């Protein structure tokens, strides 16, 4: 009789093999110990009149996707403060600095997502569950999270929490594109993202669904939450370019927002962004 190789051994070996192959593709970023690093913080706001939220045309599977009217997550602006959620603020071109966060640590590099109800997620913390990987889940025919940032070379676990078939179609150009279907509550699938890119993911069955996986080649980034604020810490002192990305604005408009910042040891610089249509 043959000996069964334990599954975990295969996984460990597989991960090891993958870790051998990815560095050649991943951009060169060197993790060093950052002493006396500086901080850049600020807020992203919307300039001008806030457009009315776009209502989604939910024309399929209402028993799962819901009957109530739902609105697009493309642009979420706080009515009072005009704070823009789901904006990615990041430092361009930095080749040395703090190490990349683990998925659990990355939780600290984003704001509170819009519509996040703490009580619903209370049990996760209560059980002391630590986030061990990046995930893209689907619930009530919406992707969760709508936007996330991951380090280049890491993998995302694709899940389907709905009781029907969804497909996940990545519209990537640099990273290999794919289109996978997962049956209701079926087995998750892992996908790797070796290159820096803003990857849109859609579902061809439910056209209104979309999500963004923002792959960054350095760990200096922040995803704004409902209050629009950001805070990037432990930056080695020096001059940098601070860039912003948001799915709902044109490339040129975002490029024009790129700002020069000079980070000084132990100090906090404030930079604010105003995005307008």
């Amino acid at each position, binding site marked *: 009789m043959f000996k069964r190789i334990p599954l975990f051994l295969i996984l460990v070996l597989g991960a090891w093999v993958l870790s051998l192959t990815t560095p050649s593709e991943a951009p060169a970023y060197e993790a060093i110990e950052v002493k006396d690093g500086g901080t850049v913080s600020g807020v992203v706001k919307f300039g001008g009149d806030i457009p009315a939220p776009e209502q989604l045309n939910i024309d399929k599977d209402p028993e799962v996707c819901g009957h109530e009217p739902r609105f697009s997550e493309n642009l979420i602006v706080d009515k009072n403060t005009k704070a823009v959620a789901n904006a990615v603020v990041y430092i361009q071109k930095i080749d040395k600095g703090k190490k990349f966060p683990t998925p659990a640590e990355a939780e600290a590099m984003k704001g509170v997502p819009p519509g996040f109800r703490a009580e619903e997620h209370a049990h996760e913390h209560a059980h002391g569950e630590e986030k061990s990987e990046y995930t893209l889940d689907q619930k009530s025919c919406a992707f969760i999270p709508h936007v996330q940032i991951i380090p280049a070379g890491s993998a995302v676990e694709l899940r389907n929490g709905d009781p029907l078939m969804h497909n996940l*179609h990545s519209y990537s150009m640099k990273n290999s594109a794919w*289109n996978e*279907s997962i*049956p209701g509550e079926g087995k998750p699938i892992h996908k790797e993202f070796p290159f820096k890119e803003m990857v849109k993911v859609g579902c061809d069955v439910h056209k209104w669904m979309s999500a963004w996986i923002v792959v960054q080649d350095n760990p200096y980034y922040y995803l704004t939450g409902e209050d629009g604020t950001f805070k990037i810490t432990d930056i080695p002192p020096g001059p940098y370019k601070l860039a912003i990305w948001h799915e709902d604005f044109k490339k040129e408009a975002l490029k024009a927002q790129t700002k020069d910042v000079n980070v000084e040891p132990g100090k906090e610089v404030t930079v604010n962004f105003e995005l307008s249509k």
Partner: protein
Amino acid sequence: MPEKKDPIEEKSHATLFVVVIALLVISSAWAVWDEVIGRRPWKHYQKEFLALAETKSLKDLKEAKGAMATEEYKKLQEEYNRVSKAYEDNPDRKAQVQEIENIDRELADLIHEFQIHRGEYQALVYVMEKQPEGEGKQALLHTVRGLEPCIEDLSVKMTAYQKRKKELRHELGGLVREKASLEEKLIAYRTRLEGVERFREALKKEKVEIKQVVNWDMGIIDRCHNCHAGINRKGFEEAKEPFKTHPMVVTLSPLGPGLGERGILDIHPLENYGCTPCHRGQGYATTTAIKAHGELEYWLTPMLRGKYAQANCFKCHDYEIDVPGGEVISLGRKLFHEYGCVGCHSVRALEREDKTRFIGPTLDEISQKVYPQWIAPWVDNPKDFRPDTKMPHFFLNKEEIRDIASYLWQVSQVSSATIDPQEFDEEMIKEGKQRLENVGCLGCHKIGDKGSNFAPNLNRVGEKIRYDYLVSWVEDPTKHKARDRMPSLRLNKEEAERIAAYLTTLKEKVPSQEAVDYNDPKRAEAGFQLIARYGCFGCHRVKGMEDRGKIGADLSEEGVKPIERFDFALLEHEMMHRIGLENPRDNVSSARQAWLTTKLKDPRIYDTGKYKKPEDKLRMPNGSLKDEEVQALVTFIIGLTDEQIPQGYKRKLSERDQAVVDGTFLIRRYNCVGCHPFSLEKLTLKDGTKIEGMAKLEEEGTLFFQLWHDYPELGKKLGENLAIEVEEIKGRIPTVGGEIVPIIIGQLGEEKDLVPEEARAFAPPFLYGEGKRVQSDWLFRFVQAPYGLRPWLDVRMPTFGLTKEEANILSKYFALLDNQEYPFERLAERESVYVEAKCARDSEYYVKAKRLMDSKDVNCGSCHVRGEIKPEGDPSGWAPDLSLAKERLRPSWVREWLTDPQRIQVGTKMPKFPWGEFQQLFPGKPEEQIEAIKDLIMSPGDLLTAPPGTLARKGP
């Protein structure tokens, strides 16, 4: 008395004798020298070549031996020894083979057990389902549930065994592959050395002597290689002349089946073809280079140098549109047709193209179609109105133009009351623009800098064509006599009105409003004469002149026309001076090239300085050709000869090649490539790696290239991206076709914020592998009467009004290109015998397949139309009608497609089939599940669309 001396003694002739003897000796010596050396310059060349070859091969030998003494080679050898020993001694090998056998046994048992349990389970489920609600049913349900873990457990075990077996197979295969790859590398070293050694052996045997190729069929005795000693030997690419290797390497057309790259002399071996069939010249002359090249007085076929040698490709490759390696002559041939040369000049070899010679529109409807003021400036200078037009400039004055217009105006159909340009509201124009862009007009026409140059660009169409004519033309061009190739896009009247409204806004200048009168019958009479002289009916259908012949010279034998018949007029001296000749007869070839080139660049040049009445002047119009176009046309014309090549030497096309040639002709004629991409992009990297796929993005010197095949040597699978440094790319053959794709992607990005990769699904389908996808008879019908197949597309396959013959050619092209059976094939899945056989084995087969397809976790119907059953939501989110599949798709393709659609059409909206799920719905391997879905989709009758519950009854 003086002694009488004997005159013979008295007079000495010694000096004379000496002189004569000396002369005799000298002339004999000269005769010998001339015979042995003077008239045999090739001896000297051969000796020089032998010395050159000796030096070179010695160097090669040293290098080849050196390479085998390097560390690298030793390492390779050691590695090979190690691997082959490991392979031989590997105790695991035996163990692994043993293990596989064990697994097979185990599996057989498990499957048996599984089938028994599953049978019991299904029977029980059936009984339970039939039971009325109540305790009995609950009890049964309990038993059923109790059986489930057992079945699941078995299925898990089976999967595990299968996985292990796959791993073992892979491991076993790994070592074998490694060994083979190392062996191949080692052999390459040895082959190199052996090659050099063989070359040196051959060199030793080589004598300095006259060599010749004699081929009585072709009528050649060629001795060119007496001097050009390296012409058919590799390795002398860098040598000086006359020793260079023949330079040409041929790459086959990307539209056709590829032979890859081959040397031109590998395809045409010197021993058969010699040199003169392509290059001309005086093949048997050996005394001087000038004589051998035939570049002297009275030799009628001097050598064709460089690209001009392609002129002769046409002799044997007369049927092909793209002669591999004959890019210049292929272009010349294409231009000869596209510029309408064939409308005035007869060429016997092109007779089959005569029926498509009208490259301009029919002029029968001109009075309804255009504004009268537009005609005069257009004819006077067509390129001024439309810089890329093919209409040439005729040397006509204003009065003559008016005469011609009067004739055309009077014979054309009486215009209905013309509506003056109307004002249209912004919204209508905007909608028209949008529809024009998204329905696919830009696949052929250009507006601004967007679109294709295939059909007339529309930048100033608003100055030319009347609104009401535009409406009826756009709505259905096939109703108009003026139609040539413009297809119908099956637009309705409202759409046509909107598009026409937009078109009327496309103006650059305010057109003249000056009244013009084309009604004078006298002018029409004069116009008739002018049309007859200038031959407008060569390109346009002109009423009343349908039976006119071609007005230009017959060019069937232009390539061998005696040089005296080329009239240089007053320019002979000047032109000959420019090409370094005294007289055209000194080098017929250069003189002829010069005459033709000059004529094509400036067709009336030979009238310079001559006194001629207007009607006697040269008539050929000026097409403002580019230099490379002139060269291509001249090459084509030089190749036109009366020479008969024996059949055996003509390119005999296989059935498949013939189909590809015919198909390519139609694909170009109807510009299918304007919308559909046809081939993959091919890259050659500097390290020799060749890959095929699609370039996705180029950024900062890196090309992200999606691979469309598996490349185990690169560790990449089909669909994955390879990041390549742009400077590592040596050769790049782009995708053929799909001009409209980037336009559509750009437009959807603007209008609907789609990212490029997302928008790609809205472009016309990629036809790479189309022959594998569709059934030939479906394609035959579809191209004649296309319909909307993909509900989400705005862009539309037009109706071209193809004839049956054309539809046959296209359907054959796609089938044979992909090595499919043609024309008839058996599709077993569509036969009732097949269905009966499947049902006999498992009466629930089709029911289960349908259950699987309809389950919420596969749910094909969520996107796919099935006959009358439409999916929920907006049609833009629907997918093709599955009830059409059995008539349209090949079963083998359906199976491949279901397994992994991304492997066939990367970027498709169709997701991959979930692997190893649905054991409740359809117990079995994913391959079996896919097979069953395929069988159901392809099944005859209405099994696919039959309501649930009725299927079982349909089985036997």
